[in-house]
């Protein structure tokens, strides 16, 4: 019976994959180079987006400050960050006060220790932890070393939140939790 099952499974796979050809081994080097170039380009684009987001947020904060004064601007960004932190699902995993839960603790300056560069934290929130599943992540200079290993369950917020919204959440986390 096992043999029967084995041959039927093999037949299914043979039929499905009959029209698929993997690369000849001689082309693997070229394929690796092509893949690495593509990956580098993706990372560069992500970094550019993060830098642009920070710049835009900075400019918008500056504009707002000149219009209504520094205290109001700061509280408005902070209020947006606080509201999004609760409503977008951050609090559900990291705790209402960032104390940790399903996700790791981010309060007490922990987020800034893991991601000394704001752009790295923004990129992490945009991609979710999927790309880091099973791996350590963040700054190796953090006391205790890199965070993780990541469970890979944090969803990517890049599609549901704008760069400005993510920047507001990061601002709130770092200043208030």
């Amino acid at each position, binding site marked *: 019976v096992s043999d029967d*099952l084995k041959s039927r499974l093999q037949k299914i796979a043979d039929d499905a994959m009959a029209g*698929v050809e993997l690369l000849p081994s001689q082309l693997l080097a070229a394929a690796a180079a092509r*893949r690495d170039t593509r990956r580098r380009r993706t990372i560069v684009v992500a970094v550019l987006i993060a830098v642009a987001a920070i710049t835009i947020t900075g400019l918008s904060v500056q504009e707002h400050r000149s219009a209504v004064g520094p205290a109001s601007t700061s509280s408005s960004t902070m209020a947006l960050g606080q509201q999004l932190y609760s409503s977008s699902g951050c609090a559900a995993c990291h705790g209402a006060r960032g104390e940790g839960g399903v996700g790791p603790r981010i309060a007490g300056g922990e987020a800034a220790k893991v991601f000394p560069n704001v752009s790295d934290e923004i990129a992490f929130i945009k991609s979710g932890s999927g*790309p880091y599943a099973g791996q350590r992540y963040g700054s190796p200079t953090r006391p205790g070393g890199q965070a993780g290993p990541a469970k890979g369950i944090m969803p990517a917020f890049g599609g549901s939140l704008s760069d400005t919204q993510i920047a507001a959440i990061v601002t709130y986390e770092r200043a208030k939790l």
Partner: protein
Amino acid sequence: LSGVVEFEEFYRSERDALARLCYLATLDIDAAADAAQEAMLRAWQRWGTLADGNPSGWVRTVALNLCRSRWRRIQREFRLAPRLFVRSDDLQPVGDVDLVRTLKGLSARQRQAIVLHYVVDLSVEDIAAVMRVSAGAVKQHLSRGRQALSALPLALGIGEGIL
């Protein structure tokens, strides 16, 4: 040079079986070919250290992990990962509808355990190593997989407990 020749032999003898294994694990032609190709590519890049160990087991583990990777799926769907394999537009329809439907009804891990056991003939311990789970978890996946397969029409000839 001998390393290159060794890898070519390894690649030629393993690549199709690996792609088929990935297909049975995912039931998705693109995902299977992508995972198998990527795993082979990584093996080629590390061949110096892999050649003396168990490259077949290593490449199988990597490929099956890639099959399960959500990030890999996103990369593939959004075309962030270049397609390195060649796929004919004129694909054959897959027969054995009942068995395929039963496989689809299994969880990804149950399907992987069943395939590794019945197609690759791995022991429970070896499956646990490939899937990076405990032997107990493998037994559970196999048991549930067998239960589903035993419900197939008699065409498979499976009686209760025979698998």
